[in-house]
């Protein structure tokens, strides 16, 4: 713990010289607190991970043991081999989830950056009106649109197709807002040079703005990927045939049909959590920037 002292700020060091004993006690307490909170926040995942290797009887035995008596990999194999026939298999659900998450994230990067370019860079009549209209749509609770959107999907025969989630997912007001704010911080010099060279607006967008906005686009990608991967109600409504399920829906169905089968449920849960967790640990910088950027808009 003493190793932490050199990196502490100057004022903290000054205090350390004045009252060494109190300072180190405070330091130890602070790290103990941090580690304690960290353990509490990760505990459900650790327990679920350990639980996914237990036998069915072990998993609901009381008192529960932290680690399984034997680390059984059977649960994992069993979950991977789940099949309800007609192509409704676990790998297929994994594919559905991944495909939709990547699809929505990519479409959104395109659709939202186009709109954001218009809002941030082009002076056109109706700009403020459309922008305020967009901010207004952010206030609409999802509960209102869900049911009528379902009716529309049945009419257009999009239920149980990927389009049911890809089409409405193509744009999101939040992402457009974030990108607009970001584009405004990009200097205009390059664009003006391109403009003088006779580049079209589309060329400027594609060759000047997009490369400069890569970090913001990555943020949009990550946030939308996670949003789609974790979404539940929309896929529950629009993709209800077993072949089209996403992992979340499959998990919920299994939970309701096989109440007692906790070991398999936990495997499914861990399986579902790992990809987004990995993505998050790899790109946590962009991630946190994105969340705070959408948040700190006042």
């Amino acid at each position, binding site marked *: 713990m003493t190793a932490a002292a050199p990196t502490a700020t100057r004022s903290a060091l000054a205090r350390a010289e004045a009252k060494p004993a109190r300072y180190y006690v405070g330091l130890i307490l602070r790290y103990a607190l941090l580690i304690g909170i960290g353990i509490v926040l990760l505990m*459900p995942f650790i327990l679920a991970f350990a639980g996914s290797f237990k036998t069915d009887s072990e998993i609901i035995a009381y008192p529960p043991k932290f680690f399984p008596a034997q680390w059984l990999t059977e649960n994992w194999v069993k979950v991977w081999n789940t099949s309800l026939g007609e192509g409704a298999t676990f790998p297929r659900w994994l594919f559905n989830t991944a495909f939709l998450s990547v699809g929505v994230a990519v479409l959104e990067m395109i659709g939202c950056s186009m709109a954001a370019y218009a809002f941030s860079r082009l002076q056109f009549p109706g700009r403020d009106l459309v922008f305020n209209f967009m901010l207004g749509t952010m206030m609409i609770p999802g509960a*209102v649109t869900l049911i009528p959107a379902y009716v529309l999907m049945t009419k257009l025969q999009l239920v149980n197709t990927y389009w049911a989630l890809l089409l409405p997912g193509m744009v999101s007001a939040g992402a457009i807002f974030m990108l607009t704010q970001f584009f405004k911080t990009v200097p205009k010099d390059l664009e003006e040079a391109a403009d003088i060279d006779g580049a079209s607006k589309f060329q400027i967008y594609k060759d000047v703005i997009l490369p400069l906005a890569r970090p913001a686009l990555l943020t949009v990608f990550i946030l939308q990927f996670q949003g789609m991967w974790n979404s539940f109600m929309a896929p529950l409504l629009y993709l209800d045939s077993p072949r089209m399920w996403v992992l979340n829906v499959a998990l919920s169905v299994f939970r309701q049909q096989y109440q007692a089968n906790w070991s398999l449920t*936990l495997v499914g849960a861990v399986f579902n959590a790992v990809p987004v967790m990995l993505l998050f640990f790899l790109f946590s910088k962009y991630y946190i920037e994105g969340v705070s950027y959408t*948040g700190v808009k006042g």
Partner: protein
Amino acid sequence: MQVPKTSSRSSANLAAVASFVLIVVVIMLIALMNAPTKGGSGVMASFGSYLAEVRKTGMPYMLVLGLFAIALGVVAATVVRREWPNPQRRRTLIAAYAFLAPYLLVTFIFTVGVILFALYIAFTKYDIFTEPQWVGFQNFANALGKKTFWQSLYNVLWFAVIVTTAQTIIAIALAVILNAPMRFKQFFRTIFYAPSVTSSVVITLIFIWMYLKTGYINLFFDKALGLFGVHWKAIDWLGDPRGLIQIIAQAFGGNIPSDQWYLRGPSIAWMCLMVQNIFTTAPTFMIMFLAALQDINPTLYEAASIDGANGWQQFRKITLPLLRPIILLVIVLGTIGTLQIFDQVYLATAGGPLDTTQTPVYMIYNEALGKQGPIQMGYASSIAFILAAIIFFFTFVQRRVIERGTEQY
């Protein structure tokens, strides 16, 4: 502006007419898609038969939207006619709306269009497979006359108040802890944020398992109270309908009968879902507070500590006032989210026990898909609009209250 030549004036007129036609056609197509007809996959089998359906039940709707389309078309045509003669502005106008086209199309079809449809449907009896029948305010009256609906509102209000308050306080506390100078800041920040990354389905399932009678939560109380020699009787957390106020009353030898459910307070099952929700959402809001804390000028704290202010005073007098805008945002977002809680209820309790975890969105889902009886889309829509009105009301009030509080700083 220079006087345009006659040829460019006539091309401007042409462009104005073209844009008018384009807008009217697109809006009418969107309106047609969302017209209140019977739904189901067969209804759009052929364009002619669908038009016949629209003619049967959707004419008033189409008429209103037609007027709107014409008005918007006229505005657009006027703008186009004005901008057209100037090549630079003409190009910008065309480019701008071309860039906005995907956004506008998707939003008008899947947000504006469906909301107008839902608004119409809320005044009808509608089961998707037959034509909607106009019933006036009947659906709203039915909802407001039903005990389950009032109980669902009662539940989500408790949920919103407790969860929003707790998660805001915890998020601020976590952010302040993480904002102190330390090593491994990035590491701790990542760990703290982890619960917010996972899907609510996964977290809910894990929590259901931990809340089992033989689960870790009971084990925890068993061990913790065991230290003091107290015997802990395992609770079926998610199946326990006893309310908070009821439990307090029972502790004093009283009780609250079930027909006075509105006095019982949030049930144990409901509070379990609250804890779980706080667990997942507090870290999200923590990140927002952390970003805001990093924007606070450190010289403010230095000046305060020279004046002899201690840590708590600095927090009260500097940090909190400067965080006010973010606090407002977090409370508003938190309220909007909690009033619409669905996933957890769907998975963990299905509204039970004794409707103590019933929520409006769960009711909407059940009524709209006919999970507990006939499909009642109109009724579900009316509940959705009542809920939306409540959400708007809270957002508005919170904004007023917190903004007024800011003026003194």
